[in-house]
Every structure is written in structure tokens, then in C-alpha cells.
């Protein structure tokens, strides 16, 4: 490799955030024509390091060289000009515009007259060259998440990017779409481009990457080791600093009485289109029912309908025999239906209120916190203090505002609120999404403890491994329907059902 210039060389990068050393003298090399995985837990500094490379952040110390020449980026535009582009977890696309319009957005050309058909052709050409089939005239809102991701990649390719950074690109994709993405990435690498693949999913890293750099707490624990010469347990150890137990202890347990019974529920989604079609299932006490599916296939709407946040157009929802369909969220809370919402910041918490205010959201109506009209704040703080300790919520005090908590700590605060109510039914939506390995394990143990305590649990997750490890059976949702139920953990069948492939044999 000595005679070939590295595509990127980062040396001694230091980046601080208030109270956190996000990158501590990090070195990173990217060769031309390789897929280089950047592995680490949440908060390990992967995204920070790559944001420095992409011109979003400026490092306090350290140097960057692109193809041997020093570089200093003040904005993503600077980085783009040197052939570096980053695709973030949350796409920056304009839903009402076409693929081509989104690709051209922010560029100097075309200047005034758009001549869109010309550009449509060029966008389609690039797509074909790298095996991405996207109609240039399609509007973004018409596209699936996987297709939208392809538009983001097209945007970067159109800008002549030689180094593409992708931040957890597989998080939103179905297994089949992941395969498609990996093929595109290989085609790009074959044409001499380089890719940084940020992930915390070990099996994907092993599958797609040539080399791996592992970060832990802002420091490099493994620099550019070849995936061929390492293993998943080895990488996991480098990532967490200790051996991770991948097998959770799930006690065999006979499910009890039916707690939740959903019968032929239909509901419309945010756009007024049907989001749930004739959904029926049951969850019993002491049982975890997994809910698998690609994001946007009705899981969110199902959770909202079950917790009273969305009306259903027909059907019945019964909890312990009581009808809850089209009742208020308060009725669900009163029947001890706990809900760990998918969106922690926009639904699950009040960002500018204190931890105390956040953990009493469901219990402030009852004694001992409430006393008639008044609210006993001394008791509330005491309750928050207890939960903070019991659930290891890391924060200076219980008066700290929720927005200042890290993702994992916020999730622990939400879980402490929901689980301390001794729920009879727990709806847990993506409870471990975005958490680091240690935190995930903690959350999973809490879920299993609830199962043992006899709660009925509906668990939606994008991580198949998680569902396979925790759930007693798995329901797969596709386009608002329960596409099928899998009890034996057959991942191939789950994958098929998730992508509509199981439709040939209708369920029940």
C-alpha cells in the first residue's frame, strides 16, 4: 500500500463537546477502493469523527489529508469540493420534489433554466451504472425508505464524490433492501471509490467491509484490521471492552390469560390512507409477542391505536375484556397499559421540563403525588430520585432538563416511568433503537423481567436478533396487515413476510 496514496488520512483528531471528549487523538486511514467499517457503540465517537471529515464539525486538534494533500473543511460544501460526502441517518430530502430536483438541490448548475429532462437522463445514467433503479421523475414521498436512500447516494455520486460516508445505512432497511444496498456499495468500490460504513451491527460489518476500525469512548481500539482476520466475538470485545453475552436468559414460561385482544382493527394513517387493515391478534400474560416489519408498515399506527392516541375506523381492542377502541389515552393508562413510544423526544418526553416532571407523567394524577388539586413536588422529586437510582439514569440531578440526557439515559427515564407502573400490558416500540450494546442489554433484561412478572408485552423492533432472542412468537406486519406469524424463528420466512413475499399463502 506504500505506493498508493490513501484516499483519506486523519491524524490525531480531537473533538470536544461540553463534558465529553468525543474524539481523543483518533487516527483513521481510508484506502482507495475499499469499504471501511467504523464500528463502535453509541457515543463512541463514530459519527463525530466522520462529521469532522465531512466538514460538519471542526476538530480542535489534528489534521486531515485527502489523497496526500492537507485539507481543512469549514462546511460540508468544502468537503464535497474535495470529493467527500456523507449520508446521514435522517435523510435530507424534500418530499414534494422529484428525485432529480433533489439531486440538483444546492448546486450551482443549472443556473436559471432547469432543463429537467436533460438532468433526468444524467441521473438515470448514474443510477444504472451503480445498479440503482430509481425513476428520476418520481416524487420523494412516493418512494420507499430504501429508494430514498438510493436518492441520497445518487446525490453524492452526482456531486462526484470519491469518498462516501454512510451513517448506519441499514437501520431503516428490510433484509432484501440491505442486499441491494451492499451490491451498490460493491459497484462503487469496484469503480475506485471508497466507502466508510458506520455501524454497530457486527454481522453486517463482517459481510460487507474490507477493513474495520473500532472506536470505544472516543479512542481507537482497533485500527484498520481486515475483516478476514477477525471475528464477531473479537470485534464485540473491542467495541465494548469486555465479552458480551449474546444469549439472554429467557426462562421457559407458560403464557397465562389473554390480556390484549385485537379484533379486525382498521385505522387510517397520517395521510388519510388506510394504515391498518383488519388486524387481529392476542397477547397473553407473561408472553412477549414480537412485531417485525420494515418501518412504515403500520407498526406505529398499531401502537397508537392500542394506546388511544389514534382512532380506529372499525374493530375491537380489549384489555382484560374492557373495550378500549376509540377510548382516550387516559383510559388506556388507567387500565395499566404502558407505552414506550417509538419517538422518545417528540412523544415520550418533554424536553425542556425536568427529569422529575418527565417521570411523573403517568402517575401525577394519583396519591401520593397528587393530593386533590395540588401536586406534591417534594414527593415527586423523591420518586424521581428513586427511579434515577433504580434505573441508573445518569444526570447531575433530577432537576436536569430531559433534553440534556443522552439517548440511552432518556430511554431509561422513559422505561422507569412506564415499568414502575406495574403494567398489565406493555407496548414497547423500538425500545433499544440507537442505544449502545450495554444499554441494549439492560433494556432487554428489563423486558424479560416484566415478562416474568406476568405482563403481556408487545415488542416492536427493527433488530431481528432482538426479536428472536426475546419474543415467544413473532408477528410480521406488511402494508398494514399481519402478514404472518412465525414461532420457530425462521428468519428467511420473516424476511419474506416483511417484504410482502409471504402473501402467496394468506394467514389464518
Amino acid at each position, binding site marked *: 500500500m506504500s505506493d498508493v496514496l490513501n484516499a483519506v488520512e486523519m491524524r490525531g483528531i480531537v473533538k470536544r*463537546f*461540553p*463534558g465529553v471528549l468525543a474524539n481523543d487523538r483518533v487516527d483513521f486511514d481510508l484506502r482507495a477502493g475499499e469499504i471501511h467499517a467504523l464500528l463502535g457503540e453509541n457515543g463512541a465517537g463514530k459519527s463525530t469523527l466522520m462529521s469532522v471529515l465531512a466538514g460538519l464539525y471542526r476538530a480542535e486538534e489534528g489534521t486531515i489529508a485527502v489523497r496526500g494533500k*492537507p*485539507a*481543512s473543511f469549514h462546511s460540508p460544501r*468544502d468537503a464535497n469540493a474535495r470529493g467527500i460526502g456523507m449520508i446521514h441517518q435522517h435523510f435530507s430530502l424534500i418530499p414534494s420534489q422529484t428525485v432529480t430536483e433533489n439531486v440538483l438541490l444546492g448546486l450551482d448548475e443549472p443556473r436559471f433554466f432547469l432543463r429537467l429532462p436533460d438532468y433526468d437522463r444524467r441521473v438515470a445514467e448514474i443510477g444504472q451504472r451503480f445498479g440503482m433503479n430509481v425513476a428520476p421523475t418520481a416524487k420523494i414521498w412516493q418512494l420507499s425508505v430504501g429508494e430514498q436512500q438510493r436518492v441520497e447516494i445518487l446525490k453524492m455520486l452526482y456531486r462526484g464524490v470519491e469518498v462516501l460516508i454512510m451513517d448506519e445505512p441499514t437501520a431503516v432497511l428490510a433484509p432484501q433492501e440491505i442486499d441491494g444496498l451492499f451490491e451498490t456499495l460493491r459497484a462503487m468500490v469496484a469503480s475506485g471509490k471508497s466507502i466508510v460504513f458506520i455501524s454497530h451491527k457486527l454481522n453486517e460489518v463482517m459481510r460487507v467491509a474490507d477493513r474495520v476500525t473500532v472506536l470505544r469512548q472516543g479512542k481507537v481500539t482497533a485500527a484498520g484490521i481486515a475483516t478476514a482476520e477477525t471475528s464477531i466475538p473479537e470485534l464485540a470485545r473491542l467495541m465494548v471492552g469486555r465479552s458480551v453475552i449474546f444469549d439472554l436468559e429467557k426462562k421457559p414460561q407458560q403464557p397465562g390469560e389473554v390480556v390484549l385482544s385485537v379484533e379486525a382493527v382498521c385505522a387510517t394513517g397520517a395521510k388519510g390512507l388506510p394504515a391498518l387493515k383488519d388486524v387481529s391478534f392476542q397477547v397473553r400474560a407473561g408472553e412477549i409477542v414480537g412485531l417485525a416489519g420494515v418501518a412504515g408498515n403500520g407498526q406505529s399506527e398499531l401502537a397508537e391505536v392500542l*394506546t*388511544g*392516541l389514534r382512532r380506529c375506523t372499525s374493530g375491537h381492542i380489549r384489555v382484560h375484556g374492557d373495550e378500549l377502541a376509540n377510548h*382516550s*389515552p*387516559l383510559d*388506556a*393508562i388507567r387500565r395499566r397499559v404502558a*407505552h414506550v*413510544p417509538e419517538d422518545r423526544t*417528540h*412523544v*415520550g*418526553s*418533554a*424536553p*425542556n*421540563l425536568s427529569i422529575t*416532571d418527565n417521570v*411523573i*407523567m*403517568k402517575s*401525577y*394524577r394519583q396519591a401520593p403525588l*397528587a393530593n386533590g*388539586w*395540588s*401536586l406534591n*413536588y417534594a414527593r415527586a422529586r423523591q420518586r424521581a430520585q428513586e427511579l434515577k437510582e433504580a434505573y441508573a439514569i445518569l444526570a*447531575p*440531578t433530577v*432537576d*436536569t432538563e430531559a433534553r*440534556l440526557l443522552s439517548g440511552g439515559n432518556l430511554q431509561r427515564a422513559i422505561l422507569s416511568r412506564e415499568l414502575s407502573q406495574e403494567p398489565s400490558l406493555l407496548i414497547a416500540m423500538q425500545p433499544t433503537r440507537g442505544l449502545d450494546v450495554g444499554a441494549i442489554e439492560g433494556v432487554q433484561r428489563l423486558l424479560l423481567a416484566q415478562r416474568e412478572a406476568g405482563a403481556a408485552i408487545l415488542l416492536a423492533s427493527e433488530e431481528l436478533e432482538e426479536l428472536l432472542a426475546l419474543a415467544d412468537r413473532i408477528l410480521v406486519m406488511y402494508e398494514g396487515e399481519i402478514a404472518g406469524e412465525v414461532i420457530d424463528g425462521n428468519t428467511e420466512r420473516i424476511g419474506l413476510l416483511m417484504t410482502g413475499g409471504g402473501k402467496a399463502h394468506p394467514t389464518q
Partner: protein
Amino acid sequence: MTTTASQTSSPIKLIIEPRLTTPRWLSPVVSIGAIIVALILGGGVIAFVGGDPLATYAHIARAAFGDLGVFSDTLVIATPLILVGLACSLAFRMKLWNIGAEGQFYMGALGASAVILAGWVPEGTPRPVALGVMLIAGVVAGALWGLIPGLLKAKLKVSEIITTLMMNYIAIQLVNYFVFGVWSESGFQMSPQFPKMAWLPRLGDYAREIPALRGLTTHFGLIFALIAVAIVWFILYRSRWGYEIRLIGDNPRAAEYAGIDIVKNTVLVMMTSGALAGLAGMSEIAGVVHRLQGAISSGYGFTGIIIAWLAKLNPIVVILVSVLFGGLILAGREIQPAGVPRLIQGIILFMLIASDVLLRYRVRIARA
């Protein structure tokens, strides 16, 4: 792009980082600092136009707080300001932008006047009873004026900013209708003076017992205002309802998720806000004007918005800010360049809002 090294090596740089915790003392210190900076800047402007800043400030201070008499007048102006400041603070806590305190103030005044002028309270009724009826009428009228935008917002998602703003003009013209037409005193643009039973007691009324109170205009409305402060403080910081208001204000989706009825609370908060502004109208009409007329408010309802904002929606601080503004308004009537107190009001407002950055972020100066 070649001078990479030199760009990073400026000798001194400002580092701005978010604060993880805000000490309790910081907020008042920053606010007082902002007022001092505002006075210095205002002084600069006064000096620029050829005035003497120190003399001007001394004059303003004397005209507003110089002796018991003028301080009493300051409190008279502060009284309605406290009430409308509370009205806005309560609504703003829920991020309900009630811009209609002015109209609710007028409706409160109209309601309180109506029970007297329409003769529903017969002459000779004991003062506490007459005033009690006026108070209820004023509060109810203000609350109804808040109910309409509240319902429109809650049920139909009509912007309360527009509806409350527009309803100000309706209220003012409605009062004009009664002043010019129904209750006009021999063609003048004002109603007949209320009988004494409808006058809120003033400090000066007790001069016979305590001579020191002679001529003091501060009236019983101040007590209403202080009681209202206590009630609003309790609601916001010690009640379940206040918790719901704060939760809805910070994140309505989280509030809905927590089982809180947003429709009900929107209506209730708008009504309560209107009731407080209506009480301000009643207090002004019964404590100062003693008749219904057109110009009963010099924009109190709008000043209430500024007061609520400056007080950071804290009911106790509303008292302090209202007294300060009462003094500035009074001084504005007294001193010659009447624009100066307004100018200072404006600069103080800007400075206080800008100083908020210092509460959220820590600013350090570091050598690179």
C-alpha cells in the same frame, strides 16, 4: 484553501457551549446585568441627542419612585399591568399566544360597568356587594371573550393569535358603542359617573384615620392583583392543572400521550387568561376611572405581553416588572421628552431577551 494552518490560529477565540445546569442565582444576575447594560445604551442615545443621561434617569426615578405620592401613582398603573401580565403568563406557559388581553380588559370593564349602568345593582346596595357583583361580571365577561378564541383553537385549530388580536378591535368598538350610544352622558363620549358604592376604596379614603395617606390614589385593585398572583403561582407550580399546562406547553404530543385533554385545557386556559384580563378592566374602571369611557387602557393589554415575557412567565416576577413599567409609564407622562421612557422600555426588552443566551450557554474566552 492552501492557508489551512493560519486560519485556525487566531490568538483568542470565543467558545460557546450549552450549559448542562443553570444555577439558581444566574437568572436574576443576568437580568439585572441586562437592565444595567440597557440603561447604559439608553444613556448613550440620550447623550447623542444632547441630553444629560444621568439627569434624565434621576428625573425618571424621581417622577416614578421619588416620594410616596408618585410611588402610589406608579402602583395604580402597575395594578392592571400585574393582572394582564398574569393573564399572558398563564396562557404563554401553554404556548397559547393570547394577544387579546387588551380586548378582554375592555370586556371586563364593560361587564363591570353594565351591572351598574343598567341598574341591575340598585342604588344603595352595600359597597362590598356592589363591588362583588362588578367583579364577577368583569371576570365572566373577560372569560367569555377568552372562551371564543379558545373554542376556535381547540375545536377547529384556528390560530389564537389572529382571533384574539381581532377580538381586541371588536371589544374596543363594542365599548365605544355603549359609550357613544347607550350610556352616553348628554352626548359626551363617556357614561355617567358611577355611584360611590361602585368605587374601589383608595388609600386616600382613609386619610381621616391615618393622615399620612392623604391623596394617595392606590386602590383596592392592587389587593386583587396580589391575590391573583398567589393563585396563578399556585396553579403553575403546585397544582396538577399547572403541571398539565406546562407539559402541554413544552410538548403537546407528550401531553396527549400522558392522557391529558388538550381541548379542555386550551379552553380553560384561554378562559382563565381572559378572566384575569377582565379583572384588570374591572379594577381599572372601579378603582380609577369610575365611569365607562373610550380610552380606559393605554395599551395595557399589549404591555402585558411584554411584561409576561420579561418576567419569564413567573407570576412573582410579574409584580416587579409591572412596578418598573408602571414607573416608566408614569415618568413618560411627567417628563418632557416623553419618548425616552418608551425608548428605555424597548432597549430593556431587547437586552433581557438577548441575555437569555447567557442562561442557556456558557461563553468562555480561550487562547487557541
